[in-house]
């Protein structure tokens, strides 16, 4: 005997094909979110990415973006499922089944479908992240830090998203049931969703808004700080909002008008444009989400090339194979010991040079934080440590002649002066930290020697001034810089041995990062204040872990070795590389799923139009062209806009950093462009696959 329950079961079985896309989207979204959650909460990643640092913020921002994108395409897939289901529901309601009667069966079906596919997605997310991570270890890079450790609290995030997905499905089910007009429910499948049209001005205005929003959002913090002497609130990021409004207008223009010139041929793509217009609402929303996801993926993709290229070029341009520096109270291997070490590795060293420097207190002005977000500029007599050569010693080390006038000093930068940010150019007094004698100085300009530029500030004094200020300065406040070349082919094993020997030669008093400033610490301690570097806020380095990214990047006495830096660059940044590659994959995957889902929807919704075109005599070639005209914009515009915007943003960041666009940066951007081409190629393959699927759905040969 047939009952309502059996009837519903039978109808659900018949629905399986229609539910396929819904199940797929649920599964993929949970898999993506689970995998991403596992990554961002992984102790492996959290240990390497500095807390409060930009990379963590970027990782979190992209997670929010991925969450949003996955929510969108999941909700969209459920709406699609209900649109197909509505005819069934409407028929049953027309035949006298009340909503109360239909509700339990419908909710049971929704819970079963969304619950099962979402759970499977969660389960799939774990092997997915394991495979991806270990695939990278196998084919790209492996290091001690790369062992994936998982904190299973990430499942809370997955569970929360699971609840969201299921809740959205249930809300959708409720919405469809609540419709009062049965005929609307029955005809839902064929309902059009036209988007509100604006004039052809909306596209150009969109581009202007994107540009304005990007510039405003980027420059606003600086302007705010200059005007109000306070750190900006997070609300200032709302100035980026025009970017999203602009993107919406661009997508709207794409859907409603296209980018062809109407005067030339007003009937060009008329059919596909009209189909697009009447399904415009969801198309515009989907294009927007895809664009933002592709932009996020591109952002992550660009991280390594921009970091890596400048590093590779800098390493290659060094005048010496090895450079190191140390405090004179440390017992560090000299030329003799290093030569012996080199011999053990079947090589020799040459061009060994070593010169002294002084660690002096430099005065200057700095931002001091006040209550709230305000700050003020304050002069500090002992602001920071500077390492000073005499002009003669500088020439001995570098081979470059320089004449420094008495009472002045030079800061050392690279040739393109892109790291002058780290130099103190407004010091007026240098202090001997033992005798507290001071020397009045003024900044005279930059000397250029790349090996001595960077986060550690090196400077040059006049010989007489140098001798004067050096009087009675003790060993902890004096140092030595040394450099040498490999005689013949360099040896990686020697470089490793040199590095580890050097590290083990330093005492615990040198176990700190380059941001730790002894001068400023002394100043604060003398005033009875605690230096932040002596609190938990300072990242701790350890000689026991000299091969970690943190140690290699931040140790105050980190040597430079061309062969080591070149070979280990990828290893040192392995976790960063992995993380950003993962982000790029997640965002791109989400964008591709959205594109695929949207195109299939367009095909299904316009089936009757394609049938009518066939009856009117349209050839398969014509119909394929129409399909491509539908699918093309769904893939092209988000791809072009997302990648284009991010490329432009990166260019702006590099330019705004120091007001220059250097050769290194140009090479980095070229590398980014290469990556974009690869991604575009993959995206194109997905587009081709989607078009084939659409043709199959519409039975077009």
């Amino acid at each position, binding site marked *: 005997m047939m009952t309502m329950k059996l*009837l519903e079961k039978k109808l659900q079985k018949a629905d399986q094909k229609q539910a396929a896309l819904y199940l797929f989207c649920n599964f993929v979204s949970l898999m993506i979110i689970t995998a991403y959650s596992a990554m961002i909460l992984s102790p492996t990643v959290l240990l390497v990415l500095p807390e409060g640092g930009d990379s963590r913020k970027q990782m979190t921002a992209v997670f929010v973006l991925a969450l949003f994108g996955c929510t969108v395409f999941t909700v969209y897939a459920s709406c699609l499922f209900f649109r197909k289901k509505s005819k069934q529901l409407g028929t049953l309601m027309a035949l*006298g089944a*009340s909503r109360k009667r239909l509700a339990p069966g419908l909710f049971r079906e929704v819970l079963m479908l969304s619950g099962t596919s979402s759970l499977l997605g969660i389960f799939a997310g774990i092997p997915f992240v394991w495979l991806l991570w270990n695939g990278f270890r196998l084919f790209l890079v492996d290091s001690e830090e790369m062992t994936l450790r998982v904190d299973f609290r990430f499942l809370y995030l997955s569970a929360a998203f699971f609840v969201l997905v299921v809740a959205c499905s249930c809300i959708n089910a409720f919405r469809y049931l609540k419709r009062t007009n049965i005929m609307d429910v029955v005809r839902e499948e064929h309902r059009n969703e036209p988007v509100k049209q604006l004039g052809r001005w909306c596209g150009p205005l969109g581009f202007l808004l994107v540009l304005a929003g990007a510039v405003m959002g980027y420059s606003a913090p600086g302007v705010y700080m200059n005007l109000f002497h306070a750190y900006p609130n997070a609300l200032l990021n709302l100035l980026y909002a025009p970017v999203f409004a602009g993107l919406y207008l661009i997508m709207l223009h794409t859907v409603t008008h296209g980018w062809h010139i109407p005067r030339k041929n007003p009937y060009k793509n008329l059919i596909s444009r009209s189909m697009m217009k009447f399904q415009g609402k969801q198309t515009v929303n989907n294009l927007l989400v895809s664009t933002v996801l592709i932009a996020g993926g591109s952002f992550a993709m660009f991280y390594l090339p921009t970091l890596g290229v400048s590093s590779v070029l800098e390493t290659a341009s060094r005048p010496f194979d090895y450079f190191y520096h140390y405090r004179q109270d440390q017992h560090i291997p000299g030329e003799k010991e290093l030569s012996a070490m080199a011999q053990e590795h079947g090589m020799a060293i040459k061009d060994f040079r070593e010169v002294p420097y002084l660690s002096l207190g430099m005065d200057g002005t700095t931002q001091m934080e006040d209550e709230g977000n305000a700050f003020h500029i304050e002069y500090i007599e002992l602001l920071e440590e500077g390492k000073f050569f005499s002009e003669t010693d500088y020439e001995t080390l570098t081979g470059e002649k320089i004449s420094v006038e008495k009472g002045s000093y030079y800061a050392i930068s690279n040739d393109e002066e892109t790291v002058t940010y780290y130099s103190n150019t407004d010091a007026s007094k240098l202090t001997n930290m033992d005798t507290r004698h001071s020397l009045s100085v003024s900044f005279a300009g930059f000397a250029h020697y790349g090996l001595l530029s960077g986060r550690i500030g090196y400077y040059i004094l006049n010989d007489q001034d140098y001798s004067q200020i050096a009087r009675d300065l003790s060993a902890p406040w004096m140092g030595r810089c040394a450099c040498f070349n490999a005689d013949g082919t360099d040896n990686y094993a020697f470089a490793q041995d040199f590095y580890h020997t050097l590290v083990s030669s330093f005492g615990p008093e040198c176990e700190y990062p380059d941001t730790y400033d002894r001068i400023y610490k002394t100043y604060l301690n003398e005033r009875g204040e605690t230096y932040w570097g002596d609190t938990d806020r300072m990242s701790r380095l350890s000689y026991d872990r000299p091969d970690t990214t943190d140690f290699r990047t931040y140790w105050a006495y980190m040597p430079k070795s061309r062969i080591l830096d070149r070979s280990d660059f990828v290893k040192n940044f392995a976790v960063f590389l992995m993380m950003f590659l993962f982000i790029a994959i997640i965002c791109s995957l989400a964008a591709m799923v959205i594109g695929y889902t949207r195109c299939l929807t367009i095909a299904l919704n316009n089936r009757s139009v394609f049938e009518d075109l066939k009856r009117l005599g349209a050839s398969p070639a014509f119909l394929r062209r129409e399909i491509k005209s539908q699918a093309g914009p769904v893939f092209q515009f988000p791809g072009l806009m997302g990648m284009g915007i991010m490329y432009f943003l990166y260019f702006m960041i590099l330019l705004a950093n120091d007001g220059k666009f250097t050769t290194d940066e140009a090479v980095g951007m070229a590398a980014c462009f290469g990556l974009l081409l690869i991604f575009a190629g993959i995206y194109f393959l997905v587009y081709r696959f989607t078009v084939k699927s659409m043709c199959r759905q519409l039975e077009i040969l």
Partner: protein
Amino acid sequence: MLYVKNLHKSYQSGNKSYPVLKGIDLSVADQEFTAVMGPSGSGKSTLLNCISCYIPFDEGTITLGSQQLKGLSEDALAKVRNEKLGFVFQDFMLLDGLTIRENILVPRIIRGKTGRDAEKLTDQLLALFGIEHISDKYPADVSGGERQRTAVARSLINQPLLLLADEPTGNLDSKSSRTVIESFENARDQLGASIFMVTHDSFAASFCDRVILLKDGRVYDNLKKEESQSAFQDRLLAAIKQMSSETV
């Protein structure tokens, strides 16, 4: 059987109201086969949807049997649709996942009365409409005419007071249309059904006992069949022509 008095219905679009039914008065007697005809936009389908309890109406009364349809709760309306009304739609609205036999039984399944008498009645309906040979097939595997006859059989399974048909021959060829009209005649003659049909098709309407002409949301004319089918069709066409010329 069915009494419609002073029925008004309008649709809202933004701030504008578009009146579609402007005071319809009509009735359908027991075992009567009635058609409603009129030009596009005259309000035929809206009238049918109001009687079917698919959409609410603004003013007037609709009485089915002894029951007024205004102000009923949702559950009560659902009960009316299930037990007192039968429906035949232009696009059949069969459920693709069920066989022909199962589709016919759907109103009974909703009602919760699928015992032996329901099976027996289903067999009778299958035989009456000549579709026993496809009872285990699915809608996608049968012709349009067979689907529509299935829909007619489904509309009668609960032995309703009134069978409502919205352009039942609209998607069919002439042979299939004839078969469907014959099904309605069989339902009236052999099962005592009352039928209310909306149609554009004067040939289909000429088989009815009475034809109501609608124009601009009002009853224009009420034509009772007193002659042969072909003569009645001629009279219908003349009346329609007259109605159209008055518009011009």
